């Protein structure tokens, strides 16, 4: 793997302005994405995965909805401080995104071809004909049979898996350096999920771009990613190469997540592990370690003070117990 960093997120925070006050949905997230690698971002619902990804593209309206802080460096350039016009130019050409809901991310009244041409028309100023030919090649690249016909069909004429493939084709239209896939398979059934993940993996190798794969499915992470970031309540709690993460997870939350995945080869009919409690609302974030209320190892120190991310071998963990015992 080349060690060239494409995206460097430093201390990113996103605060939403709401009627009931400001809530920080993402606080101080840092990670790096290298060229040609797939970085997994894992966590429960509501832990800030999607907000992080949309913040990287600055998709929230800064005048009304949200405010960002920190730095998001795309090849050294800070995306959070460039003018919005410049950001629009980068979206879709340098960074693009695949959304969770494959069924509603295509405009129902326009043909597949029209929507595939769109990014090329915006960014590369191609003529309609050139864009059309490129679009057919893209459809072929993402494994859609009879691409010439699909070009003239409407989204409702395609199945869910096909639509997600089309979305991937649109995202790849301008050969971005970074692809953010926000739970690309949640709306699809299992066999199609596997196909889409295999497609992403092969495209990642073929086109050599960085991919951020956001998911709550640890199996997907184990299969596709080289490194993973575990998020809890808007913070990174652990970051590690995937093998390390599964072999010795250091953070109690990661341990809980891994323990709650069912195993087919488990001999006993034991109950699945459950992490007690739920993700708290943003209104009552604990003062100390954010995971402390649900953590089986929590001490007074955990409840009082927020631990920092610390290096532990090739891993980085946000937990007080690391220094004392080298893992819990």
């Amino acid at each position, binding site marked *: 793997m080349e060690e060239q960093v494409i995206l460097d997120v430093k201390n990113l925070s996103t605060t939403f302005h709401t009627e009931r006050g400001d809530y920080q949905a993402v606080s101080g997230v840092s990670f790096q994405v290298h060229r040609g690698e797939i970085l997994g971002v894992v966590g429960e619902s509501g832990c800030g995965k999607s907000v992080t990804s949309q913040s990287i*593209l600055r*998709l929230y309206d800064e005048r009304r909805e949200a405010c960002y802080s920190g730095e998001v460096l795309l090849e050294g350039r800070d995306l959070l401080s460039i003018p919005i016009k410049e950001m*629009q*130019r*980068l*979206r*879709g*050409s340098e960074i*693009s*995104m695949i*959304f969770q*809901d494959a069924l*509603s*991310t*295509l*405009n*129902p*009244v*326009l043909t597949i*071809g029209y929507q595939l041409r*769109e*990014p090329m028309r*915006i*960014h590369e100023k191609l003529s309609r*004909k050139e864009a*059309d*030919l490129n679009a*057919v*090649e893209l459809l*072929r690249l993402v494994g859609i049979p009879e*691409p*010439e*016909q699909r*070009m*003239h*069909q*409407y989204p*409702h*004429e395609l199945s869910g898996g096909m639509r997600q493939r089309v*979305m991937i084709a*649109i*995202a790849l*239209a301008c050969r971005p350096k970074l692809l953010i896939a926000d739970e690309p398979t949640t709306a699809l059934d299992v066999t199609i999920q596997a196909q889409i993940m295999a497609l992403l993996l092969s495209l990642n190798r073929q086109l050599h771009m960085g991919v951020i794969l956001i998911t709550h499915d640890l199996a997907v992470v184990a299969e596709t990613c080289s490194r993973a970031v575990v998020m809890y309540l808007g913070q990174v709690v652990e970051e590690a190469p995937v093998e390390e993460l599964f072999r010795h997870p250091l953070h109690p939350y990661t341990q809980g997540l891994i323990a709650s995945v069912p195993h087919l080869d488990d001999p006993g009919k034991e109950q699945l592990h459950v992490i007690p409690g739920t993700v708290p609302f943003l209104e009552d974030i604990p003062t100390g370690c954010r995971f402390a209320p649900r953590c089986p190892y929590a001490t007074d120190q955990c409840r009082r003070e927020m631990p920092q991310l610390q290096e532990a071998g090739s891993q980085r963990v946000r937990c007080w117990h690391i220094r004392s015992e080298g893992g819990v």
Partner: protein
Amino acid sequence: MTSTSEKDLYLLQKQMLQEQRRIKLRRLGRNRVAVIGTLIVLVMAVIAIAAPLIATHDPYAFAVADRLQPPSAQHLFGTDSMGQDVFSRVIYGTRTSMIVGLCVSVSAGVIGTLLGLYASTSKVLDHVLMRLCDGLKAIPSILFAICLMTMLGPDIKNVILSLAITSIPNMARIARSEALVVREQTYVEALRSTGATETRILWLHIAPNIISSIIVQMTFVFASSIIQEAALSFLGAGLPAGAPSWGNILSDGKNSIYNAWWLIVYPGIFTMLSVLGFNLFGDGLRDFFDPTKV
């Protein structure tokens, strides 16, 4: 891996478009009500365009000797109190109604869509435009039209203008509400993530989504402006007295309603049929435009 040649791609596109059109037309053909509506609309359009060829007499020519003749071979729909041929006047009246309907629906449609689309873009603009529309809607539209007509004077241009003004608020509201719904869809967000500007999203992605509702609404505006023009003329606030218009003929006929039924019945039937026709046509169009129903 075969590569596609340009020619193949566009040939295929032509074939598929033809096929889609065929399927849609067949579907429209199965919808009886829509076919009836379309036929009525077509007949009305032909009458309006070919009025000079169809009319048997000059609609303005007086023949005092032939006053209040019942329908006969010479005067198909009889004559009115000044001996004018009712058939020819009804035919020319069709032309008036179609011109009024077309101009009002097109101008209200275009202006309403513009206002609605832009109202959906910003909260401030939304409030300003929609409160203006509320203000216009607060006055009953026919009263408002009468007011405008008395200020502007009887003329077909003024009828079109005042009816358009009263139809714009409804149009703008429909365009706005549809645009607001579309704006919240995931695909708009996905578009933003591909770097599309707001203007591009508004015109190339939101507008095509709302255009079918607008066209359907335009046919209803067409129908209602036919009625309103007839009503204004009937009340003497529409076209100048003597001009051939269904409302004017009805208005003339009300004095002799007990001894000359033909003065009321024929323009009445034409008004009714055309309004019915345009409404059915609009319903048919609604089904036709829905791309998710094939």
